[in-house]
């Protein structure tokens, strides 16, 4: 319990350490075992209008002075309750925002599906467009596509896992690709890939935890004269040295 005080939260609400102390006192005074009950009692009191309409401005709580004046106790509870309601409102707003965003995203998928006239044969084309839009295939998106086209989700996952163009995890902001086509291979692509892996600390097919880089290998980019070649966000780099590579990567935010 003592440790929790320093964290300054009260059932998920941010509170100052003084407020936290007061609440701890209250808990004792009310003889309630849990914090939730403290809050509920406070809300009850609020509801029965046993309180003055506006709370006095927050006053510094005198330390170690129990028992506290009842009005002060109550005003503190009211302040907390208001704070709780505000947070509730904010959460509601935020979730509405998230919902709105989600609806927008799904509307985009609707557009894509409409572009292909809802043709189930165009599933792969639709998924490619969704992938390009988001740089990965979020689960909600796949579920929506499944709903729209009336194709079982399992079948969509079959496709999403079969083809290399699709990713079921978010991709980094910058894509790094090392060509491992045959021409690049005989010209030293394995060594280049090793260097990139060491520098980025990311293995092929993975994304860095800060979502900065995704590393992949590709089979022939059609610029074999430059081999071995590394492509960073559509910029081609022919067999970059360690220093050049660090420069290229550090230019990526």
């Amino acid at each position: 319990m003592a440790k929790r005080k320093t964290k300054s939260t009260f059932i998920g609400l941010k509170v100052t350490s003084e407020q936290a102390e007061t609440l701890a006192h209250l808990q004792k005074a009310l003889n309630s075992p849990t914090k939730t009950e403290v809050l509920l009692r406070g809300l009850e009191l609020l509801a029965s209008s046993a309180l003055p309409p506006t709370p006095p401005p927050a006053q510094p709580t005198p330390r170690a002075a129990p028992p506290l004046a009842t009005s002060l106790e109550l005003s503190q509870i009211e302040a907390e309750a208001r704070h709780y309601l505000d947070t509730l409102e904010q959460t509601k707003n935020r979730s509405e925002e998230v919902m709105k965003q989600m609806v927008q995203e799904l509307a985009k998928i609707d557009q894509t599906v409409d572009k292909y006239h809802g043709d189930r044969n165009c599933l792969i084309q639709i998924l490619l467009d969704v992938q390009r839009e988001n740089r990965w295939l979020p689960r909600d998106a796949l579920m929506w596509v499944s709903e729209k086209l009336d194709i079982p989700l399992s079948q969509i996952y079959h496709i999403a896992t079969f083809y290399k163009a699709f990713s079921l995890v978010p991709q980094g902001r910058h894509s790094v690709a090392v060509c491992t086509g045959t021409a690049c291979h005989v010209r030293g692509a394995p060594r280049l890939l090793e260097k990139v892996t060491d520098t980025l600390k990311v293995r092929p097919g993975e994304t860095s935890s800060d979502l900065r880089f995704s590393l992949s290998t590709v089979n022939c980019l059609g610029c074999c004269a430059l081999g071995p070649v590394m492509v960073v966000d559509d910029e081609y780099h022919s067999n970059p040295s360690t220093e050049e590579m660090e420069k290229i990567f550090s230019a990526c935010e």
Partner: protein
Amino acid sequence: MPRLKSAADLEARRQEILARRDPDKPCVTICSGTGCHAYGSEKVAQAFAAEINKNGLKEKVDIRRTGCHGYCERGTIVVIFPREICYLRVKPEDVPEIIETTLVKGEVVERLLYEGEDAQRIIHEGDIPFYKHQSRIVFGPNRFIDPKSIDDYLARGGYAALAKVLSGMTPEAVLNEVNKAKLRGRGGGGFPAGIKWETTRNAPGEPKYVIVNADEGDPGAYMDRSLLEGNPHSVLEGLTIGAYAIGASQGFVYVRQEYPLAVENLNAALAQAREYGLLGKNILGSGFDFDVTVHRGAGAFVSGESSALMTAIEGRVGEPRPKYIRTAVSGLWGKPSNLNNVETWATVPLIIDKGAEWFSGIGTKGSKGTKIFSLVGKVANTGLVEVPMGMTLREIIYDIGGGIPKGKKFKAVQTGGPSGGVIPESLIDTPVDFDELTKVGSMMGSGGMIVMDEDNCMVDVARYFLNFLAEESCGQCVPCREGIYQMLKILNRICAGEGRSGDIELLEEIAEVVRDASLCALGATAPNPVLSTIKYFRDEYRAHVEEKRCPAGVCKELISYYIDPEKCQACLLCLRNCPVEAISGGKGLIHVIDQGKCTKCGACFEVCPSRFEAVVKLSGVPVPEPVAAGTEVKRKRGGKSE
């Protein structure tokens, strides 16, 4: 633009385009193929536009971004017409000089020309040895055409073959012509195109489909890409002619989504062809209806197989099926479907235009016409080359490719991608045609030609291809899924120095099963890279297995890096570049590699100046005892010591 309603309309339109164009007006063409694009061709093109404006030449000079010219080694390529002055390795900073010297004064910029033997400069593109030995009938027009302009294609006689077909040939006559030309599929198998077309035409079921296979998956081959990006109308024209002969009204192009420029140019071409009435209803007033849909492939090598490709177009997982009934009879949605590769379709208009006789006059007895190869790897002139069938590998690699760079020795050439095999030096005079390449254990494939020198390990090459195939196997049938995996496992242990006696024979045994029992061509040809390397380089395999030695110095576990104390000049280069700080020494002190710390990344080997050659790779021999720490270097004679 009103739709063209007849062959005469098309001809009139062509004349109108030609009349508008002044053949003497200078035109700067900038290669904007994938290779040159990677070099920064777009910046060069923008520099030309800006400088031409600045010099007030906008009305006097045209700029054209063209498809791939093929000479990727020397990109960005700029050719200035009408004099056909070819500048190589052009950078944006060269542009003002080109404009000043060539476009204003009418002279050439010597330093940007090709430098031949005896330092002789070559002005015209066609005179450069790389181009001189080629017959660029399919790929050649790329350099004159802006892929986004149908007028450019029409100006060069485009769609004349289609007009000829629609205005005066029966479908049977078209089929007959293709049969007579003995055109074989350019995608790998080399199946006669005419026979395939006939099968689809005669198969019961409507509608029939025609499909372009642009799922070029071979790592190291990019000719289909360059053709589709650089000259999409030639493919569409061929496809439309095929559709007419076969009786199809719907076509598909299955193109890899990894080729965004090809998709973009193709879509632009489709829109233009529709606008001109060269696609859609009643093409050129002939009553023939045909249209094309683009399907982007989502990345699966196995989906290039015909039945798999068709399943993918249907929107499902692109896996092959047993082909007791060919796709030509029962393909897309169970209907007769004719699939040919990009290059095959692009060759069709030429056959119609110039005649089967002309076409079959090129090439060998069994393989007619030309073939485009991507000549890559350890070769001086990397690029796309188009040669008549029957040219020998030696001519392609040495006369066109300019041989092996850095004075290294030629070791082998790999053709046919993961389905093909390696061809050793002893067989370098093999003529390139479908049957000859199969005879030596390789295959034509789609046309990848990867040249390898003495520094390439053949076991590693076999392992590379199997690794690729193991990842790409769809896993439906056991021989392919398990067989390739087991072969890969054995190759991995051979490369790691853990090869056991009998491994080579075991590889051969598994290879046989995989070849005979796999469902589709991916598995059936998967053993080729293994079998051909064992066939021609068995000693190299033995060295790995028996002596734990990699003669080419490639397999990491079998090599050690060592600094020759006699040669080390203590230049500190390797010491600074070592990522794991395994090299000790200092100024004036011989550098020594701590074998315990060394990760064999090869950084020291790469940076050691060629005039010292102090860092060496050792394989199969113990690393000599290092010199005592702090030993001073022996300066070379003439070195600036003391």
